[in-house]
C-alpha cells in the first residue's frame, strides 16, 4: 500500500466486523496518512469528498458480505480500486469473530494482521506474469434474448462446466473464464478479485470473484491446476469481462494437474450451447 488512498469503511456500528472496519480505516488514515471517507456523511453530502475521490484511488473496507460500503461506492459512482472484507480476512487468519462490539485482544490481533498486510503489500516484489503463449481469438455461435446477446465460442479445445465457466486447453495449460451467461446476468462488472498466484485449485473449486452491483460471482474452475497467471488488466478494467469474457476478459491461466480425470465432468460447445439457451429462457420466462 504505497499510494495514498481514499478509504471508505463500512462503519456498521452494531456488528463486530463493522467496528473493526472503522478502526482499520481510522488507523490507516491516522498512521499512514490516507484520507477517510465517512460513509454516513458521504451519503448526504458527497460533495465534501469529491476532491479526495478524484485525486486518490478508492480503498473500500466492507465488514461483512452485505457489502454496504461497496454498494455505497457503486451508488455514488465512485470507482473502487482495491478492497477487503473483514469477515473474509478473519477466516483467512483463523480468527473467529463474536458478537462483541468491544475491540479486545482477538479483534486487535486481527486489526494488526490486516494493517500489517495492507502496509506491506507495497514492499512485495511485484509478481511477473509468465507469458503463457495462449492466444484467444474465437468464432462464436450466438443467440439473442430481448436486448441481450449471448455468445459461445466454437472450438474443440474449449470445455465448459454446467456452472457457466470455460477452460481453453492448450498442452498442459488452460486459460479459464466465465461465459456470456454470467456476464449478462451480473451486468456491469465493477470489481475483480483474482485467484492467488501459485494456488492449487481442485476442479469445481473457486478461482477468483467478479462483482457487480447486483451480486458476486465465484468462478468455478472447470479444470484443476496451479494458477500460473492472472489477468491483471481486469483489476483496472473489470469491464473487459462484459466486453468479451472469452478473449480480453479471461480470468487466469492454470497448469493442469488432472485434466484426463477432469474431462469426464466437462462438456463441449454443443451441449453447453443448449444448456445456456435453456437457462436463459428459464430465467427470462
Amino acid at each position, binding site marked *: 500500500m504505497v499510494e495514498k488512498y481514499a478509504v471508505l469503511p463500512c462503519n456498521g456500528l452494531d*456488528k463486530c466486523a463493522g467496528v473493526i472496519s472503522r478502526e482499520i480505516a481510522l488507523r490507516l488514515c491516522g498512521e499512514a496518512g490516507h484520507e477517510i471517507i465517512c460513509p454516513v456523511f458521504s451519503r448526504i453530502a458527497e460533495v465534501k469528498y469529491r476532491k479526495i475521490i478524484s485525486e486518490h484511488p478508492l480503498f473500500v473496507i466492507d465488514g*461483512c*458480505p*452485505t457489502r454496504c460500503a461497496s454498494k455505497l461506492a457503486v451508488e455514488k459512482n465512485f470507482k473502487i480500486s482495491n478492497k477487503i472484507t473483514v*469477515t473474509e480476512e478473519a477466516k483467512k487468519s483463523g480468527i473467529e469473530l463474536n458478537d462483541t462490539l468491544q475491540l479486545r485482544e482477538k479483534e486487535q490481533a486481527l486489526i494488526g494482521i490486516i494493517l500489517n498486510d495492507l502496509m506491506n503489500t507495497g514492499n512485495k516484489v511485484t509478481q511477473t506474469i509468465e507469458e503463457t503463449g495462449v492466444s484467444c481469438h474465437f468464432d462464436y455461435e450466438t443467440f439473442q434474448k430481448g436486448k441481450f446477446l449471448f455468445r459461445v465460442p466454437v472450438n474443440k479445445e474449449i470445455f465448459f*462446466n*454446467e*456452472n457457466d465457466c470455460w477452460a481453453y486447453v492448450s498442452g498442459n495449460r488452460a486459460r479459464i473464464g466465465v461465459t456470456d451467461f454470467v456476464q449478462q446476468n451480473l451486468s456491469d462488472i465493477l470489481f475483480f478479485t483474482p485467484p492467488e498466484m501459485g494456488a492449487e485449485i*481442485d*476442479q*469445481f*473449486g473457486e478461482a477468483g470473484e467478479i462483482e457487480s452491483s447486483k*451480486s*458476486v*460471482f*465465484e468462478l*468455478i474452475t472447470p479444470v484443476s491446476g496451479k494458477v500460473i497467471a492472472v489477468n491483471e488488466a481486469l483489476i483496472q478494467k473489470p469491464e473487459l469481462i462484459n466486453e468479451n469474457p472469452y478473449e480480453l476478459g479471461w480470468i487466469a491461466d492454470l497448469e493442469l494437474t488432472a485434466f484426463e480425470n477432469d474431462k*469426464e*465432468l466437462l*462438456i463441449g460447445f454443443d451441449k453447453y450451447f443448449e444448456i445456456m439457451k435453456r437457462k436463459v429462457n*428459464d*430465467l427470462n420466462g
Partner: protein
Amino acid sequence: MSETTFMGVEREKIDWKPVIDYAKCNFCMECAKFCPHRVFEIRENEEIKLIVKNPFNCVVFCRACSKTCGPDALSFPDKNETSQMIREIRKEAENNG
C-alpha cells in the same frame, strides 16, 4: 424450471443445497431475494421465516447466495466429496448400462 440432470446424473441423487444455521440467521431474506431458482421459501407468519423448500433446484457447486449473507449463516457440502459422488454415480450407470 428445475434442471433434472447435472452432468448426466439425476439431480435428485446429488446432495447439494444450502443449509441455514438458524442460530446465526437474522431472516434478512437477502439470500431468498438473490437466488433466481426458488430454492428458499419465505414464511412470513411462521416463527422460522425461511426454509430451504426446493433443495434440488439449487445449482450444484453454486454458493452464490452465501455471499449475500451478512451473518455467514449458509453452508454447503464439500465440493470434492460432491464431485467424487457424481463420478461414482456416473460409473455405476455406465456399468449398468
